[in-house]
């Protein structure tokens, strides 16, 4: 069916007969052209000109109010059979979820020929803002009607769009690892010989770096500067550049603010200083090689990043995970959440001016958890512990005893102490209550997820509404607070950390014994005869998942972390996309800051809880 549809160009869709058996075609006639190849996944091919009416219908009538992911696939070098007939080069993919109904997604595909445009989804979902900028930046697809379409990760002088399959980096080696130059041929080159000090920089045609002046992009999507509302004192507004590299910005990050007096009229985030095109690297890598790279996304939470990728590939390949490995994964993911929330509480306070004291108290406990991570995985931050089909090796003998001590004695005590230290503090209340408010509807519309929306009273937690792994076996609550301000965002993290401890206690109590499951005690191909097969057979390190595409999201500590993978039955992913929660949560930074003081903007950013490794990717 999809092949037949693929033959028909999108432009002729109106002329083609409308298939009423396809969903939503009765409500929005002619919107859905067909189904994407994997029918089970619910992918629908949508006519570009009907995208906005269909999205409006889905949002208003079908309660799909949350645009999770916008991304794009370049099908010009697709090697699989399923989509051989696709004539359009690009395919933009939208994943919609419902925060009220929960459950699975509606996936919309819009096929785009080269040099064509797609209507911008920002008209319906303002949260498409940054994601569409990213697609424009990396794929060169124009979104018609986007209020501020700009190169968000790369600079204006960057030649080409790197995620296109025909774009090659400087000193391009090969399309896919392993590179043949490494073994056994002679004539190896060192990376050091390839240092890009040479003449490897090209600019777009007719573009001169000398003439370039950075455009001041300070008008965010949903806010225009309201000049008249400020009362009698008529002062002139000025543009202030915060960053890059303000100590409180958690990395190299920049905010461009238009202020009047000290009040922010408009604010625009500017990122990309740490951009390394994680996704292009991911497409060069084999599937397994991506695992350590995910550690480097949100480097505070490497275990949950690992978990997301492992679950996505397992979904793609249909692999069973041993019971004990599932429990270990949950334990690691929840410990990670505790770490992240401790860290985040500490740094919200840091940004408020409580320099270091609360942060250091929080980090002390983090070190104790990192000791446990180091003992099982060999590294404190870049754990690289999970694999497709399980975890790389079993826990060490004394591990559970130590973990039990932490979750029963030490961590509850610490959380209570932080609660006593901070929650009643008058300065925290004065700076936090009522600051950075955004209504729940706005938060959802801006695609913001995680503790941010739970602090505004929306009980949306993927562990509950769309359970993955074995989260449905544990009893825990999804705490919510009604206020939606900085103080609530601080306090919700404390509450969530307590819920995580609840899950940890159950998981550590219920975890099945080591002998039953036979997880390898050592990660070594020589000791464990079957080592590697757990990760997908043949060699373990280079396997070919069946053709298909998959979107797996997890409730990472910072929000909804999603992996969108397309396989064309090769040893390397055809498309590897990360829906990074801290990047997309930045949609809300501008709208949240407007009307507050410039000192509040720092805390508002801190309360979003970003990690630049994940924002810039």
């Amino acid at each position, binding site marked *: 069916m999809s092949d037949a549809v693929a033959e028909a160009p999108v432009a002729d869709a109106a002329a083609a007969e409308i298939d009423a058996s396809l969903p939503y075609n009765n409500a929005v006639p002619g919107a859905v052209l067909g189904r994407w190849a994997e029918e089970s996944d619910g992918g629908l091919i949508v006519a570009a000109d009907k995208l906005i009416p269909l999205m409006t219908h889905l949002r208003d009538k079908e309660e799909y109010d949350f645009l999770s992911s916008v991304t794009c696939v370049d099908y010009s070098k697709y*090697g699989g059979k399923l989509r051989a007939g696709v004539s359009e080069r690009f395919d933009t993919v939208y994943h919609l979820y419902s925060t009220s109904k929960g459950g699975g997604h509606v996936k919309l595909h819009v096929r785009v020929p080269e040099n064509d445009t797609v209507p911008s989804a920002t008209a319906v979902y303002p949260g498409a803002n940054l994601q569409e900028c990213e697609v424009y930046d990396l794929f060169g697809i124009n979104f018609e009607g986007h209020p501020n379409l700009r190169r968000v990760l790369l600079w204006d002088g960057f030649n080409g769009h790197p995620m296109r399959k025909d774009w090659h980096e400087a000193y391009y080696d090969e399309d896919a*690892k*392993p*590179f043949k130059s*490494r*073994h*056994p041929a*002679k004539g*190896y080159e*060192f*990376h*050091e010989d390839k240092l890009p000090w040479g003449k490897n920089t090209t600019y777009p045609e007719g573009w001169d770096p000398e003439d370039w002046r950075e455009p001041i992009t300070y008008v965010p999507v949903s806010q225009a500067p309201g000049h008249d509302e400020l009362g009698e004192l008529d002062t002139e507004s000025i543009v202030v550049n915060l960053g890059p590299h303000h100590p409180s910005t958690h990395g190299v990050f920049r905010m461009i603010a238009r202020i009047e007096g000290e009040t922010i009229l408009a604010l625009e985030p500017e990122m990309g200083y740490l951009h390394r095109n994680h996704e292009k690297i991911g497409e060069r*890598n084999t599937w*397994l*090689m*991506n*695992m*350590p*790279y995910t550690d*480097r996304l949100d480097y505070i939470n490497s275990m949950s990043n690992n978990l997301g990728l492992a679950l996505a590939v397992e979904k793609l390949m249909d692999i069973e995970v041993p019971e004990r490995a599932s429990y270990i994964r949950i334990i690691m993911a929840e410990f990670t959440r505790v770490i992240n929330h401790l860290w985040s509480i500490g740094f919200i306070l840091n940004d408020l001016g409580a320099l270091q*004291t609360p942060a250091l*108290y929080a980090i*002390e406990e983090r*070190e*104790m958890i990192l*000791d446990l991570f*180091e*003992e*099982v995985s*060999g*590294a404190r931050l*870049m754990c*690289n512990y999970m694999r497709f089909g399980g975890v*790389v*090796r079993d826990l*060490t003998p004394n591990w559970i005893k130590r973990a039990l*001590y*932490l979750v029963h*004695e*030490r961590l509850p005590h610490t959380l209570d*102490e932080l609660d*006593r*230290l*901070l929650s*009643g*503090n*008058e300065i*925290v*209340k004065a700076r936090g209550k009522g600051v950075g408010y955004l209504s729940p509807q706005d938060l959802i519309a801006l695609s913001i997820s995680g503790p941010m929306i739970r602090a505004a009273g929306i009980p949306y937690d993927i562990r509950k509404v769309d359970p993955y792994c074995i989260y449905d076996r544990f009893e825990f609550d999804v705490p919510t607070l009604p206020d939606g301000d900085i103080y609530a965002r601080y306090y919700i993290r404390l509450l969530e950390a307590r819920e995580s401890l609840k899950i940890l206690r159950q998981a550590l109590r219920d975890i099945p014994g080591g002998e039953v499951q036979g997880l390898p*005690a*050592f*990660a*070594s*191909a*020589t*000791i464990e005869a079957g080592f590697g097969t757990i990760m997908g057979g043949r060699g373990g*390190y*280079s396997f*070919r998942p069946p053709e298909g595409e998959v979107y797996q999201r997890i409730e990472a500590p910072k929000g909804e972390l999603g992996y969108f993978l397309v396989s064309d039955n*090769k040893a390397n992913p055809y498309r590897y996309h990360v829906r990074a929660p801290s990047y997309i949560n930045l949609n809300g930074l501008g709208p949240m800051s407007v009307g507050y003081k410039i000192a509040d903007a720092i805390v508002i950013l801190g309360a979003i809880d970003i990690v630049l490794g994940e924002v810039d990717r």
Partner: protein
Amino acid sequence: MYGTGLLKGLGITLKHALDTFRDDSKDVPSRYADSIQLDNRRRIIEQPIDQEGLLTIQYPEEKRLLPERFRYIPMLIWDTQKNEDLCTACGICAKVCPPQCIWIVRDADENGRPVARPAEFYIDAAVCMSCSFCTEFCPFDAIKMNHDYELAVYDRYPQLVYDKEELTVPVEYYAALWPSQYAAEEEVRQRKEAEARAKEEAKAKAAAEKAKAADAPAQKRSPEELQALKEQAAAKAKAARSGGAAGGEDAEAKKARLEELKRKAQERAKQRKEQGE
């Protein structure tokens, strides 16, 4: 009352400060309880999980005790008994390496034929991401993770590009760093060796018996027996020719089996090629 929250908070910070002093005024502060004293100033500290008070360590005089699984930069293992590299230059580590920082050149003998041993082995430590995939997939236990994390140098090149000499460590060093894994590997090696030895012995024994059996009855065989044996052999060959290799493997059955294998391999290669295209 306004200000109670502040006072409460100050009380907690005061308690933390006092805890530190209280712990430090003990004869042996709790962070030194399980430590290994190297000399006057230098110690290796294992922090207890219930540590209170001061948690910081006076690096570089004091260092943490690293867990066995700690991974930093790979090292190559030198078999001190056989006096040779364990590495066979098979290249699996270079293939699984995510940042592709391993370069191997296979050695060759005087005739230019490749030998299972590396002529050159480089790891660019500036690129290595310490994932330890190379050690996990090495089928010869030849590459393992070193615990030495003090690698600071003034220039990235050439100091951080480690060659074979810099990477190689004796097997005893590895056994000391990774005791339990080394023990497990040793056990597997010995088991395999024992199996191989037993197999060889069995083979030798079987060969000896066969020779004996072939020798001894040959002299005693009567013409009738010879005739019977001939008939048996002829029947067996006939059975093999007619397709049933039931009576063990003779030359033609083997040939057929090899043909079959070859055909299957060709098919697989063809399939792979199709998939690749």
